[in-house]
């Protein structure tokens, strides 16, 4: 569990948010190192698909723009290519900050209706259950998480592609593949969750 978000006053800016990011987000303690050079935004391959580039996201965190940061599509459109992190002259883990902000956005309900977040959830479900992503199940779970009718509609729309993939052997029928030691993976993930909880408790 993460420490509660600060209550934002009537204006869009709350310095408490910057402090909260510093204390609770992975890499947030490096925020002060940013000199706003923009190497991250310049390097981002999908910057044009983002509401705000990584540089501006950091400036907005500092200015305490909680709602705009947490509801920004930047957190979800990031492909984790790590170019920003590699190129940052100040060694700021930009990708980690953005990914953890995405997790926090989910935790605090900023991403309930975001398709990207729903897809990520389906993806994670498959990965943690089988140790692999099963395209059929990930897609199906994702489509139906948008609603029953929408699930049917999207499923039909993609039927032809799916059949084509089966025909050419790109997608199998039958039980989903699992990794050999699924119990081991489950144990690893359980331990990771434990560690995260301990860290959260320490910070509190």
């Amino acid at each position, binding site marked *: 569990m993460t420490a509660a978000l600060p209550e934002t*006053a009537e*204006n869009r*800016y*709350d*310095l*408490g948010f*910057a*402090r909260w990011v*510093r204390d609770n987000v992975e890499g947030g*303690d490096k*925020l*002060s*190192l940013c*000199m*706003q050079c923009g190497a991250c935004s310049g390097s981002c391959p999908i910057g044009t698909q983002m509401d705000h580039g990584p*540089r*501006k996201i950091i*400036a*907005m965190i*500092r*200015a*305490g*723009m909680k709602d705009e940061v947490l509801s920004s599509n930047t957190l979800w459109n990031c492909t984790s290519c790590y170019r920003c992190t590699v190129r940052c002259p*100040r060694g700021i883990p930009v990708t980690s900050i953005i990914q953890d902000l995405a997790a926090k956005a989910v935790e605090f309900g900023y991403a309930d209706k975001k398709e990207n977040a729903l897809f990520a959830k389906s993806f994670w479900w498959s990965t943690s259950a089988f140790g692999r992503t099963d395209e059929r199940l990930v897609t199906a779970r994702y489509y139906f998480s948008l609603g029953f009718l929408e699930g049917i509609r999207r499923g039909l729309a993609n039927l032809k592609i799916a059949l084509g993939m089966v025909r050419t052997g790109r997608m199998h029928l039958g039980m989903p593949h699992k990794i050999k030691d699924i119990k081991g993976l489950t144990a690893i993930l359980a331990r990771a969750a434990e560690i995260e909880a301990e860290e959260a408790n320490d910070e509190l």
Partner: protein
Amino acid sequence: MPDGGTMVIEKKSGIYLCEGCGIADAIDVDALEALATGDLKTPHCKRHAAYCSAEGVAEIAADVKNGDVNQVLIAACSPRVMTDRFNFPGAQIIRANMREQVIWSHPPGEEDTNMLAADQLRIAVAQAGQFSPPEPHAEAEVAGALLLVVGGGVTGLTAALEAAHTGAEVILVEKTDTLGGWTRKWSRLLPERPPYRDPQPNDIADLIAAVEGDKAITVMTNTLVTSTAGGPGAFDVTLTQNGKNQSQSVGAIVVATGWRPYDPSLLEGLGYGASPDVVSDIEFEEILSSGEMKRKSNGDALNTVAFIISGDSDRMPYSSGLSDRIVIKQALQLLEAVPEAMIYVMHEDLRAHGMAEEFYRQAQEAGIIFQNGVVKSVGADLTITLEDRLIGEDVPMSGFDMVVLSTGMVPNSTNVDLEPAAKGADQLVDDVNPLAALLAAAKAGDGEEKAEEAPAPDTSEEADQDGANGEAAMPGGPILNLQYRQGPHLPVLANGYADSHFICFPYETRRTGIYTCGPVRRAMSVAEARQDAQGAVLKAFQAMRAADKAVSVHPRVGDLSYPEFGLDICTKCRRCTVECPFGAIDEMEDGYPVLNPTRCRRCGTCMGACPVRTINFKNYNISMITDMIKAVDVPDEFAEKPRILVFACENDAYPALDMAGINRHQLTPYVRILPVRCLGSVSATWVSTALESGYDGIMLLGCKSGDDYQCHFVKGSAIAQERMESVGATLESMMLEKERVRTEEVSIADSARVTALLNDYADEIKAIGYNPFKGF
């Protein structure tokens, strides 16, 4: 020709024609020898393959030793080089520049080049005719190595200690009752040693103890300097301690009067005064010293704090890189005391120069957030509205416990505790702007108008800002109360910094023998002020030693000559006393000028000013340059060879011309170049002489003038420009084109530009046509 009443020695000239460095290949040395022994009537003319060789030097030395010659005319390289080799005690040395300004900047073997070489020789012979060896002035009395240090802060303490260690007796004068100044109040100091990352302990107490324990230093607290007369070597100062006067003769004076804080309530819109939790950096330093990190309003802990750096010079004229370093220091100290604190630094430009970059990075790594933008306002509830250029909108940031405003250091170039001097205010204004003395001179005799123009002493900051334009006076009375004709103040630069030129001539003021150091000169940290004090002390020692030997200090180091006044024809016009850049000339009660020789820097500005040409130096005088101008063989207009006379300042323009030769930039063959000590020494008579002699154009090449002047004598080039403007008017009244006289500013690095400048001017003069006076 000056007549000092000294013994006249018969001049025996010898001309030495050097053939080295390709001179013999490029010009006709046989013709030069024929000219020397013929027209120039100098039978003693020798030639050598390289006079700078041991053989060549020995040949000249033998002639001097045998008494064959006492004036050595060497036609070889530039007078700026080989000065150590061509130095023959007992003989005067005159140099004709045949290398840099003839063979290296003109095509070899051409008629024009040979004409130029012949003229260079003629000029040298003319110069020798009016050149007498300078003798030391007799008046100098020297007090010995006793140094007065004014100001007992870290700068003054360091200066006193350094001077004592260098062997001087020191009197250290402090206005208040304690030593240590502002530095005593600092909780910690800026880092000055590697790794430059952490504030370091304040060790001012050790420095105070060292000064108090030094037997060579006499400390006088509660003391003001109430009068300063005399000059370097023997300043006559009056020290007033608790109402009691004490007279003292000192060799030189170091002024370390430091600074005072900028008034934070003048920072418009930054909320100072609206809340007790908006404090200045000086006040925050007290909070840090006390160790009580609490809000002033309600005693709550400081958890979220903003520092505001207003780098905008309109809002904050005294903000500097130092202000930014102080903010970093204070923020780091706060974070150390309150590790959980959230600290913002709002800045426009962060000026962390040099090693301060490490300090800045330390602050960032520690978690201090530097937010770029312009602070538009600070409300009474401590809401800061920041125009954040990186987000692109105005960001209202609230929730701060305290807002710290960075201020700045206002130089104490006057004593604000004193009433402005009755005589001083207008004269200080005159000196703020190098041109002002001219305006004053123009108005001299119109006392009423002048009195009206003197601005009333104003409240501090407004006046400080206006000082940049030289229009208003600094507030307060004089620090040294100089008993000089040019007033009691030390002249100041823009914004009231007391100095002469803070890059080219640091520590120097426009009053010889008085040196400034520390924040009175520019904003600086404790470590910088300590270094500065060392520099000023060394300058003071130079001044005392120079006074001892009756020679000049920088830039004419070691010059024995000094201006001599022919009072028999002096009209008491006072131009020399007003225009002297260093206040060296006073007026006697009867109105005649009197020189304080140890104050004089030998620029010759007085000589250029004198309308009756009665101010002269033994080795540099009106007749000498006049003869040199006339020595040039000016062809008639049918030869189609115009002649352009160039007066080149020996400090920057002449070296630039030499450098042009070294770089082989080709110069128009029509110019004839005469070095002068400073454009300020150029007399208007030389211009008329040149026009009468048939020159077609005259160019004055000097240093940059104005607020950011580079003139080595402060205002010589500005004065020359002013004078030439009036010459231009005279030319027009004589139906001559005013383009025939031109003034240009060049720097020492301008070798390519100076060539182009002269070549273009030659084309322009050709287009205008020949001087109608030619041949008359």
